[in-house]
């Protein structure tokens, strides 16, 4: 009696696990857990958070965890916009890295003046930020217009800005590298004096709160999913698919401006060919790791954000084990392939079938 009871509960437990694996959240959470366990076994000091001092003498938190949350900020912000764009237009924007270069270049041009050598700020940071947002949203609107009104596949449409973006960024500042001398500008990418937590973390959290509120109190999420699943049906229901696609691209532009602001603020200067290089690939990867379909339609914002943190966690872990930064992509690729293969519906079905077979076999044996 007890034996059959055991096998029954075992079955239901197995079914529960199976149900869990089908949840969208499963892959990023499982990947995160695997990374955490791996780090715990390899070196528990990975999770230490120490109170240190930075060069200005202020108390700051340091440790790998802080680094992960700090460095993931830009990626998280981009993943938010990329998820919306993917859901609505069924494609990805590959120009975000180049657009960050443009946004950062605009910002420095305003702060440093035309010759790039001004000792003090030429404009308040908030003004520069607002203009940088406007420019980035304009470029977003350009991409969005190509995608929505001219029906060009997103990847191809954004290829234009991907090709020209870094060149435009260099052109804005006449290929000079302006340096912001004012210390207050670097607060946004590093630490505010007296606050031990890196500022980018606050900015990322603020973005997450904003997008959560937007998704909760507006129809943006619902509409973009509807458009992504079937534009014709959306039109029959009184939505305008073109406008909604355009809006998602403009939102991504805003995300790009914020991410660019953080990136530029980290170093107080810019390197056009290197800044935010390959971040578009990471942002798309974050969306995919979150279990969202890259073909558009339904999305889960929280899973995308989790995906972004998983990517940064992986990167930092690899750095900790002294992997050369240029060799890093190879290891990343292996992890990505494993994750993607495991999350493929066909593979999952096969695994669950195999699981059922073994459990039914063991149940028979018990009987």
């Amino acid at each position, binding site marked *: 009696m007890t034996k059959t009871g055991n096998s029954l509960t075992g079955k239901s437990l197995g079914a529960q696990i199976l149900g869990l694996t089908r949840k969208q959240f499963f892959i990023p959470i499982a990947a995160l857990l695997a990374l955490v366990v791996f780090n715990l076994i390899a070196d528990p000091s990975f999770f230490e958070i120490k109170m240190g001092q930075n060069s200005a003498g202020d108390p700051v938190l340091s440790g790998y965890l802080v680094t992960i949350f700090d460095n993931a900020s830009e990626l998280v912000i981009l993943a938010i916009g990329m998820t919306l764009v993917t859901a609505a237009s069924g494609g*990805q924007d590959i120009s975000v890295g180049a657009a960050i270069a443009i946004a950062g270049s605009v910002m420095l041009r305003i702060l440093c003046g035309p010759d790039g050598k001004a000792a003090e700020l030429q404009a308040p940071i908030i003004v520069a930020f607002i203009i940088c947002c406007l420019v980035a949203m304009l470029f977003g609107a350009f991409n969005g217009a*190509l995608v929505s009104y*001219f*029906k*060009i*596949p997103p*990847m*191809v*449409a954004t*290829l*234009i*800005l*991907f*090709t*020209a973006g*870094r*060149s*435009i960024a*260099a*052109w804005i500042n006449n*290929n000079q590298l302006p340096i912001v001398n004012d210390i207050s500008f670097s607060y946004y990418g590093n630490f505010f004096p007296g606050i031990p937590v890196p500022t980018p973390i606050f900015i990322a959290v603020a973005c997450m709160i904003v997008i959560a509120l937007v998704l909760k109190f507006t129809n943006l999420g619902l509409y973009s999913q509807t458009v992504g699943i079937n534009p014709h049906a959306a039109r029959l229901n009184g939505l305008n698919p073109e406008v909604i696609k355009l809006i998602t691209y403009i939102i991504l532009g805003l995300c790009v401006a914020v991410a660019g602001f953080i990136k530029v603020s980290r170093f107080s200067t810019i390197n056009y060919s290197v800044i935010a290089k390959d971040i578009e*690939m990471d942002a*798309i*990867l974050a969306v*995919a790791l979150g279990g969202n379909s*890259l*073909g558009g339609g339904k999305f889960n914002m929280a899973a995308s954000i989790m995906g972004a943190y998983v990517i940064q966690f992986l990167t930092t872990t690899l750095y900790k084990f002294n992997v*050369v930064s*240029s*060799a*890093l*992509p*190879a*290891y*990343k*690729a*292996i992890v*990505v*392939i494993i994750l*993607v*293969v495991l999350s*493929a*519906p*066909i*593979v999952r079905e096969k695994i669950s079938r195999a699981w059922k077979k073994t459990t039914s076999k063991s149940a028979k044996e018990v009987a």
Partner: protein
Amino acid sequence: MNSLKLRVKNMSDTNLLLTITVVVFFLMYVLAVIFLGGGFTKPQTFFNILNENASLLILSCGMSLVMITGGIDISVGTMTALVCMSCAVYLDTEIGKGGNVVTAICIALAIGLAYGIVQGFLVAYLNIQPFIVSLAGMFFAKGMTTIIKADQFNVKNEEFQALKATRIYIPFLGAVNKKGIFVPAYVEIGVVIALVLVVVLFVVLRWTKLGRAFYAVGGNLQSASMLGINVKLTKFLAHLMCSVLASIGGWVYFMHVGSGSPSHAAGAEMNAIASSIIGGTMLTGGVGNIIGTFFGVLSLSTIKNIVSQLGFDEAWWTNITVAIMICIFLLIQSIVMRRKTKSK
């Protein structure tokens, strides 16, 4: 005028886009000859464009194949670097005074085959999005290249140097140099390989069952499978062919530069995609032509040449012009296709 309209109406999408590309290329080249003169009147300028872009041409052909079936492969650029680096390291090892060229070619092809089988399997049989699969492939190749060797170095293998220096002279074409001696125009071996591949692929796409299957799968998956086409196998073969072509392109690139470096062929995948698009291949699948891709590559590199001839020295002008060109082509395609669907 009316008959022209009718003809345009009756043309298939593929041929219409191809015509636009070819016309634009010839217009551009003729205008360059008329207004810039100088270098553009010499045949060697044209052949130099071919010499420099032979590998891009091969990569673009592979990309077109995949794009016709509705997929994409962004790993080809970094794969070129990986092939260069592997062959360079093999040819230059101290043990046994370096390897021979034939084995190096085999290494290049083996890399392509391995890549193609893995990526094709993941895309076709596990139904994973081609973008993500090839993204991982791109990362892997990028990392592996630096793991093999992190810095640039030139190959000193004699057998390879001889092959690299081989020139094929074209009779009756050439220019008289300053001393009054006739210098015939030449192409490198890579160009011959590329042109042969273009012809072969054109024939395959046009007149074989496999080629028609590519178009059918890219046009509409459901109807293709109802026609009895093995959709999975077709997709698999497209990715396999693309990767093998990328490895051949890598070898041609290697023959052109003669060195291994992680920064080789950076951004080549995007150039290949751009060339395919200019050549009239659509990312949505089902439309495209290898000859169009050939002219796409030529147009892309001609415009780059023109920009540098015009005296816009700053590097950024090249990229901005190329982007504007892609933009114009996309808009033309978009408008033309919309007109056509409306007039039906």
